[in-house]
């Protein structure tokens, strides 16, 4: 079994304040892991840290370099570009050409020439998720991927994830919706909430 991500004793901070600490898990290829936890606990921060957008306070994130692709709350779409152009752009950035599979998977073919600004919220999200397929990367790090998707679209997404896992990919996501992915492991991050430090500890980090 190949390791996709290995996180050991990770602490992350949002706005200079530690929110989660002591998180360890491993994600093998072909596996999915769903992060659960109440709002504001730091799931987004954790995912951004794993994606390499921000440095951890302590601990390590190990992953094959250039294997992670991140998708956040926003889809990074340009309203004036068409669906095709948006997707083509991301495919080119990641050095790929073929986007037909992604278009088909998320049923975007009929929308191909529509400017992204004229899509509904759910359609935009589908386009955002289709971006994952054209990157050709193995590890998906997804933050609330199913927001504003209807039931059919959620099924589409679940199908895409399953196919991705089947090809040796892996997925790490924060979501509250039951995707119907029985094989996905669940990690509740609530117990890892950072404890407030002692106020007397007047140290280099001021707390």
């Amino acid at each position: 079994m190949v390791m996709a991500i290995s996180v050991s004793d990770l602490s992350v901070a949002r706005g200079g304040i530690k929110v989660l600490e002591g998180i360890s898990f491993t994600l093998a290829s072909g596996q999915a892991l769903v992060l659960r936890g109440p709002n504001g606990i730091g799931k987004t921060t954790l995912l951004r840290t794993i994606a390499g957008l921000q440095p951890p306070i302590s601990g390590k994130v190990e992953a094959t370099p250039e294997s992670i692709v991140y998708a956040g709350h926003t889809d990074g779409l340009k309203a004036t570009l068409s669906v095709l152009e948006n997707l083509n752009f991301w495919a080119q950035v990641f050095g790929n050409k073929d986007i037909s599979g992604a278009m088909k998977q998320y049923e975007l073919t009929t929308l191909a020439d529509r400017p992204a600004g004229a899509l509904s919220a759910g359609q935009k999200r589908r386009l955002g998720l289709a971006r994952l397929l054209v990157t050709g990367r193995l590890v998906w790090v997804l933050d609330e991927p199913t927001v504003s998707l209807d039931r059919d679209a959620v099924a589409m997404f679940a199908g895409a994830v399953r196919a991705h896992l089947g090809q040796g990919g892996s997925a790490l996501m924060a979501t509250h919706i039951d995707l119907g992915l029985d094989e996905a492991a669940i990690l509740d991050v609530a117990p890892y909430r950072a404890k407030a430090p002692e106020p007397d500890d007047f140290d280099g980090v001021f707390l």
Partner: protein
Amino acid sequence: MMPELGKYADTVLSAYAVSIVLILGLVLVSLLRAKKVKSQLQEVEMKAKGNG
């Protein structure tokens, strides 16, 4: 005791006045802020210790 400043008295005196006002202003602002922040911190610290 005032030295003879001649025709440039206004110039010299205004230069000294402006500079001294600015320096004293800076010192005063720094001191006041130092005092304010110090007392605020003490308050917050009391509260923090009280809670935890």
